[in-house]
């Protein structure tokens, strides 16, 4: 029996809660041959500024226990080329396109958002105020409540599209940022972006990646990300898109139970680009085993009653 996996983020209805995480799925078309893009809840494309960006010199990634550090530096083709070259193809394929919007100033976020609002085929704007890998913009907004409000309210005035600020985990109280975003008119929040991190090559005593610092993603961070989603879920009413180290249906459910309405998968897609259908099958199976008809019934269904110490 088919179960209902659909979820709703404001006015957006997604067939299932799985969204490709920004920066982990190129512009989506790279995966055209192996993934039916229309079968995903959504595709969030790589962060875009107004103009092209070259990013950091390689090496840009290094593996760490159950995770990886990246400092890509937001290499990208800029919003205009995206709209011209990629968006029509994504539309053709029936993808629900989330665009990760970047800026070095509030104005740039607004400008990029305007361009995207005038283009056909964009489902939502994810405001990247949390990239740890660039000197200006990004995380500098995401680490200040005023910066967060400023970006969100400015973009709010400039677009009719759903806006989803993406929060950084590198703060003391992430829920306060979710509240600031909600108050400033966000339709949802997504979290977490990567954790600022570093790995040294002890043999050379030099960095492992050119930028020295980068962002940690992957299963290693999942327990912190789940905690943050749970904290935000208790504080805001708008939907939450959770992410950080999701590799399978179990992990997806952990985020949904903690209060996420949808999730993004990033690093795990590198390991297995066929992860999407496996997770969907796992979610179906869970609903089946537990006799639940609608996946959305599980959103926030975590019950904090302690487990027993006793193993049966």
């Amino acid at each position, binding site marked *: 029996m088919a179960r209902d996996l659909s979820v709703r983020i404001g006015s957006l209805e997604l067939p299932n809660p799985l969204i490709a995480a920004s*920066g*982990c*799925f*190129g512009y989506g078309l*790279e*995966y055209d*041959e*192996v993934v039916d893009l229309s079968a995903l809840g959504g595709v969030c494309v*790589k962060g875009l500024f107004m103009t*092209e960006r*070259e*990013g950091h*010199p*390689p*090496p*840009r*990634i*290094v*593996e760490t226990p*159950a*995770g*990886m550090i*990246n400092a*890509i530096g937001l*290499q990208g083709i800029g919003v205009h080329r995206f709209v011209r070259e990629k968006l029509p193809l994504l539309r053709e394929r029936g993808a629900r396109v989330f665009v990760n919007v970047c800026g070095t100033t509030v104005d740039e976020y607004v400008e990029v958002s305007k361009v995207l609002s005038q283009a056909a085929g964009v489902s939502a704007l994810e405001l990247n105020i949390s990239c740890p890998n660039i000197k200006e913009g990004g995380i500098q907004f995401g680490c200040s409540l005023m910066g967060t409000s400023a970006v969100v309210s400015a973009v709010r005035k400039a677009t009719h599209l759903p806006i989803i600020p993406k929060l950084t985990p590198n703060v003391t109280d992430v829920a306060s940022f979710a509240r600031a975003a909600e108050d400033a008119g966000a339709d949802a929040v997504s979290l977490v972006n990567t954790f600022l991190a570093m790995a040294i090559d002890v043999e050379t005593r030099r960095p492992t990646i050119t930028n020295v610092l980068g962002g940690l993603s*992957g*299963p290693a961070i999942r327990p912190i990300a789940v905690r943050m989603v749970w904290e935000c879920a208790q504080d805001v009413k708008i939907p939450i898109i959770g992410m950080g180290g999701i590799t399978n249906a179990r992990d997806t459910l952990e985020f949904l139970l903690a209060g996420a309405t949808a999730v993004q998968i990033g*690093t795990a*897609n*590198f*390991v*297995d*680009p*066929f992860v999407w259908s496996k997770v969907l099958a796992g979610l179906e199976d869970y609903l089946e085993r537990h006799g639940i008809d609608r996946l959305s019934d599980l959103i926030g269904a975590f019950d904090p009653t302690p487990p027993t110490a006793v193993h049966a």
Partner: protein
Amino acid sequence: MPPLDVDATVMANRRLSRDYNVLTLSAAEIGTRTRAGQFVMVRPTGMTETLLRRPFSVFEIVRDARGAPIAITILNKRAGRTTNRLYEAEPGDRIACLGPLGRPFTAVSAPSEAWMVAGGVGLAPFATLAEALAAAGTPTTLFYGARSGQELFHLDFFDRLGVTLVLATEDGSRGERGRVTQPLDRALASRAPGSTMIYACGPEPMLAAVAEVAGRHQQPCEVSVERTMGCGMGGCYSCVIRVRHGAEAARFVRSCISGPVFDGAEIVWD
């Protein structure tokens, strides 16, 4: 054709030296699709010490009596966690294998000659390329450099295909002592411009040297580069290399999808 993810079984592991081995993987379907120069992204199943897959050239396509692919091999050199594990693999172990991926070499045919230049484990893509060239009847030479004679592998294979071998070793234990680019440079002196397609795979300093030599002798040149890859499919932007197309500004392109094979003249070496 789209890449496949095959949960391959290790059919054989032939250790060639203390560092090199050849693994036979039951990934026939990948073999069928592979063109010379393409790679697979590999991860020993159940190995959780590392998270990401690792890129390996398809070394050989193993065929049955009727020529149908039954397996692929990879030529593995120990460099770290995954490659150590692949060195120690036993028949029956399972290895997830995603591919074929990337842009293959452009095979040429007579009257052009094909000169392959391999450094160390950079030999890997040339077994399948040599077969393709032999099938097309292209006169082919392999310039092959390694640390020592013990690390020159698979010479019989190339010999049987009719490939001319030019060897060099750092310690002089076999072939010419020194870099393989030396005999390459000398041999090119007698070739007419544009008559010889040069294919190179090996450490980047070698690739840069080959591209320079080829350019100086006005020969076309394709190099296969090895950048750290996170996904192999264009998703992560980790594997970039700086490339200049004609008059355009140089820019970082993803070597997993725009490469790993590039026009040697277009690469801006670090």
